[in-house]
């Protein structure tokens, strides 16, 4: 049994226009030390999954189907108090936009110490700050900057501080939501490398959320491609990149400029993703699909296994 199992998870938001099903029947599993990349366009539900795993869905959002099992325990049945206990201790999150994840009027080191103390009040402030020093060394931040405010940090330093906070309580699972999107290539490269080293050292499972396929291909062993709330393709990174089966995965790969290989024309995906309110017939990618079949509009395709480590939701794949 895997460390984290997500089984047929569906998540909905109550909106004035009806239930918006942001995530529909998504399943995956991640083992300790493994990393899974979730990719897709904005609005495909990848961040919603991350928030649901953390138990941080907004008030109008809720899990409407399926469950999340961490270490054998079903998280979806837990109450708010029990969830708060597990949050950060078992499962932590590196938020998108590190600049907004830190409190601007509190010294960075103390914010991290506070997170530690909330879960381990018995440590005392001195010991907590000592632990933060260790975390700073771990993520490559100068210990001398412990008592600076967030605005005194550069973008890369803030991102490292947020990673330090995620590591503070030795979590088993880390959800990294676009952790390097706001950063330059060189800083991004450094942080990705460090994250991978830390992951190996502490045997952490990482769920890496990104719209940038090239990052996922560098960092993860497994990839899940999301479209309009559904997992349309999932498998080992090498296999999915070498042999993409779903038309959306193919289109996504064709819309990325690459640094190597011959200079090939990019093919933008025409149109926009569908609205997720109300019942939908057939395949969700049908309207933008370059190779739709007549039957695609009628029957929604199932996620089928095409090899030992490769699943596709397309009848014509």
């Amino acid at each position: 049994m895997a460390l984290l199992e997500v089984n047929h998870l569906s998540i909905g938001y109550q909106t004035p226009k009806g239930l918006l099903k942001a995530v529909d029947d998504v399943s995956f599993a991640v083992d300790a030390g493994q990393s899974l990349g979730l990719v897709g366009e904005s609005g495909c539900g990848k961040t919603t999954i991350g928030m649901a795993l953390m138990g941080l869905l907004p008030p109008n959002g809720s899990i409407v189907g399926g469950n999340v099992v961490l270490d054998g325990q079903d998280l979806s049945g837990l109450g708010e108090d029990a969830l708060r206990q597990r949050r950060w201790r078992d499962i932590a999150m590196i938020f998108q936009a590190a600049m907004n994840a830190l409190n601007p009027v509190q010294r960075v080191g103390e914010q991290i110490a506070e997170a530690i103390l909330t879960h381990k009040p018995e440590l005392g402030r001195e010991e907590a700050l000592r632990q933060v020093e260790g975390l700073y060394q771990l993520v490559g931040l100068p210990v001398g900057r412990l008592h600076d405010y967030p605005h005194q940090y550069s973008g890369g330093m803030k991102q490292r501080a947020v990673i330090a906070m995620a590591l503070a309580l030795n979590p088993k699972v880390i959800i990294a939501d676009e952790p390097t999107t706001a950063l330059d290539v060189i800083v991004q490269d450094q942080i990705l490398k460090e994250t991978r080293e830390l992951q190996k050292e502490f045997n952490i499972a990482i769920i890496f959320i990104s719209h940038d396929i090239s990052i996922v291909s560098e960092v993860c062993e497994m990839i899940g491609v999301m479209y309009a709330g559904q997992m349309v393709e999932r498998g080992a990174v090498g296999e999915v990149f070498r042999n993409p089966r779903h038309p959306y995965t193919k289109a996504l790969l064709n819309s990325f400029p690459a640094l190597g290989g011959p200079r090939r024309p990019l093919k933008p995906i025409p149109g926009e993703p569908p609205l997720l309110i109300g019942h939908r017939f057939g395949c969700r990618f049908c309207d933008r699909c370059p190779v739709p079949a007549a039957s695609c509009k009628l029957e929604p395709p199932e996620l089928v296994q095409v090899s030992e480590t490769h699943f596709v939701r397309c009848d014509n794949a």
Partner: protein
Amino acid sequence: MPDLRLTDNGQPRPAPTPPITTPVMELVGISKFYQSRGGVFGGSGERVTALNQVSLDFRRGEIFGLVGESGSGKTTCGRLMVGLERADAGQLVLEGREITALRGKDLRDFRRKVQIIFQDPYQSLNPQLSILDSVAEPLITSQACPASEREGRVLATLKAVGLSPAEDFAYRFPHQLSGGQRQRVAIARAMIIEPRLLVADEPTSMLDASYSAQIFDILLKVRENFGTTIVLITHSLAAARYLCDRIAVIYRGHLMELGQAERVITQPRHPYTQALIDATPKFGDCGEVPRYNALLAPERQGGEGAGCVFFRRCARAHLTRCSRQAPVWRRLEDGDMVACHYADGAPDPGPDIAACPAPGL
């Protein structure tokens, strides 16, 4: 109304192809400094060099990539080119005319000829104006066409950037559009007065991959149909490779390397360009992208003042020479430019050759 040279059916008019040697715009030794704010008592702060002696020329109908990290001065450079900032030294020349001294009508004329689109399409459109009003605004301020023709021209331009049916989009407001659609509106607003030069400052860094590819396509179409010179400011070498004819790499306000795009990517000469290539995530056919390991970690100390600006991070640097003598921005045999003592295949420096003159000067 003026023909927008875009025809959906039938033959498109041939793109204007004047001699490629005429630069549309030239930057000659441009420098820009910012004074950081001093202490509580108003003491003068540190002087920060945003741009140092930058010389570039942009040819008619070319897409030129300006690549660098944040803080490298690439955005300052773009803002200078459209008159949003003034240089502290150097000259800005548009179609043979020095523009720093322009006033009144001449300045208005200059502003018509250069346009810019910004990174964040969510902030660059007025939320209270309809798309029609937003896109028509440059026509009104520049008095480019009679009021009766405005709407037709807006619709034609919206169509040209792929927003169709244009009649439908024209009466919407920014919040009703996706990020990709807004960026297209921004392009339409810039292109409606047919500028000679369009500066695109990180036009896709806030967008998803599928929208980015759409914007790239539109920029290529704009160049093809209007013959506009486009300066793409980006931190992505992959995007620059896809779009650009030539690429310049800039680091802390200093030009590092300039050359034909494919050459810069496949055979980078400056260690900083090599470091950027190393750091770019790769997928697909990446087997042939070599690793250069040109970036030093952690940074070394020294090299302040007279030395090379990249000295502290350069794994190739010669400790004495590069820390004391800044390399000259020089032209190599194939016409490309570089600022590195050891860029043209010079053998690795010996233990100490501080006194020897730079090669190829």
